[in-house]
């Protein structure tokens, strides 16, 4: 996929900005608060119907305005045009229109315009809580398969219902059994899917790590599904995973009653990142953290390309806060080698521009206080 143009209306500090994009590298530069990241957020909104920054939709709307909109025109790899418009209005649901039709839901467009983002917030994937790593895996899987999106939605819903049951004053046994069974069914399928997906993703992560760091450290990502310690989820059937979860459920039944909450299931899974056998969070150096994060993101690019048959667009937000010069250069090289279009925001536009290989279609876009003040070829 190649993004041709982006129109941003009333998003954060942008009143109306129209951006014509270069085929390969687009460098968005300007001071802090000039609205660089907002342009990337707008693209993400067009791709996933939400920003990569965890905020609610209302806060994306420019202060004093009622509505905001983003339109992205792109070209699919098979040379067919694609467009998407997402309109936000305070207090009502978002309106989505695309080449697929009008009146769409976020579910309809996720995966159509595949994007991979790397922003300072993503540091938490290697540094943060298990939920961050789960969210990474789930987000990649959701862009690759819609069934996963549905399963994640069902899991959240059933979990809430089951917790409400456990929290009730008089617990209705029959009903609780049924919610437990529904919860186990969804958890088991999700565990099986996560395990199988990771099997395909892992070699890509290992390969990318080597390319980024140039080192031969041994990288591993181990899926540790909750309540399934002795089950090989990647090879077992969903039915036998469910059987194992049933045992866990009955073992924990008493404690769940005391705690009035669900104590097992796919919402507690861990994705353990390892480097030379040690856990990344505990033993990796700053540089290793960074290389690992980039490796995860590059693997995400490759798998999305393989699964959807479409090269994703890469959005690098404030790269220098995450990567040093050599890693940044390496990343951009790899992204370009895969033929993917990339957007980079930075306060150091000249530095990035100097990294762009000759013969690349690159553009520099300068922003000031929510306005694009200059667009010119960077090469």
């Amino acid at each position, binding site marked *: 996929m190649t993004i041709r143009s982006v129109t941003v209306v009333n998003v954060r500090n942008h009143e109306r900005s129209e951006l014509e994009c270069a085929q390969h590298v687009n460098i968005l530069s300007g001071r802090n608060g000039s609205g660089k990241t907002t342009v990337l957020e707008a693209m993400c909104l067009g791709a996933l119907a939400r920003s990569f920054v965890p905020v609610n939709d209302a806060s994306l709307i420019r202060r004093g305005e009622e509505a905001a909109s983003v339109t992205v025109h792109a070209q699919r790899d098979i040379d067919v045009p694609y467009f998407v418009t997402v309109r936000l209005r305070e207090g*009502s649901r978002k309106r989505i229109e695309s080449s697929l039709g009008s009146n769409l839901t976020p579910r309809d467009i996720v995966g159509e315009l595949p994007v991979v983002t790397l922003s300072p917030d993503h540091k938490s994937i290697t540094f943060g809580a298990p939920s961050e790593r789960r969210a990474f895996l789930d987000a990649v899987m959701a862009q690759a*398969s*819609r*069934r996963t999106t*549905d399963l994640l939605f*069902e899991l959240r*819903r*059933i979990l*809430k*219902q*089951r917790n*409400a*049951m456990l929290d*009730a004053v008089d617990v*209705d046994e*029959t*009903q609780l059994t*049924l*919610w437990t*069974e*529904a919860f186990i069914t969804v958890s088991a399928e999700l565990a099986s899917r996560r395990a199988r997906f990771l099997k395909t993703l892992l070699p890509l992560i290992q390969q990318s790590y080597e390319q980024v760091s140039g080192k031969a450290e041994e990288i591993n990502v181990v899926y540790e599904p909750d309540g399934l310690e002795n089950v090989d989820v990647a090879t077992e059937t969903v039915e036998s995973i469910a059987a194992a979860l049933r045992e866990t459920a009955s073992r924990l039944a008493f404690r769940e009653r005391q705690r009035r909450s669900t104590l097992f299931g796919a919402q507690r899974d861990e994705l353990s990142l390892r480097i030379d056998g040690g856990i990344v969070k505990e033993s990796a150096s700053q540089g290793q953290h960074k290389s690992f994060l980039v490796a995860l993101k590059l693997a995400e690019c490759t798998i999305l390309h393989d699964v959807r048959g479409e090269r994703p667009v890469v959005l690098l937000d404030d790269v220098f806060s995450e990567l040093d010069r050599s890693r940044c250069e390496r990343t951009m090289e790899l992204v370009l080698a895969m033929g993917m279009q990339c957007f980079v925001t930075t306060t150091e536009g000249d530095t990035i521009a100097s990294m762009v290989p000759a013969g690349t279609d690159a553009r520099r876009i300068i922003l000031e206080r929510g306005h694009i003040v200059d667009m010119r070829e960077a090469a």
Partner: protein
Amino acid sequence: MTPSDSIETVIEQFAALPTIGRKTARRLAFHLLRQSEATVEAFAKSLVRMRAEVRECDVCKTFTDRERCGICSSEKRDRSIICVVEEPGDVLAIERTNEYRGLYHVLHGALNPLDGIGPEEIRIKDLVARLDGSVQEIILALNPNVEGEVTTQYIARLVAPLGIRSTRIARGVPIGADLEFADDATLARALEGRTTI
């Protein structure tokens, strides 16, 4: 400032209805203003009458004007089958098919612990009370979401000891639709429920 408080009140009333936004509400209000007084009065009266006279059928709990709805009192219906649905609107949907000759039972909801809806809050007891010797099958036609699924299982378990056959409606691809446009979840369920030919 609004030019008329009474128009504003009507707009508010319409806008409070499901699927009606403020724009449509305004259009409806002005449409009514252009009608004759008699027409508007008949419209208002029909609403009041509906609210006052419509009640739940003594047997199947659907909405009706009488003690027993037309379906429950009909001689032509098969009394050995009961189709269980969530809402009165679902009865109309199934009736439109002209394929079903049995009776109905409307639950008025599905189990939903988050909203505090348990078996006592929906008409499950009334359903069980109807299961005398004459009923041989109940068809569970609840909405295909997690709440509908759990309610289906709940009722199936409840009637199992009574020796009554309980079935559920099939899930699959809509007739006349292209297979490639069916959503993944539906298609997956349709594959799961495939039949031998």
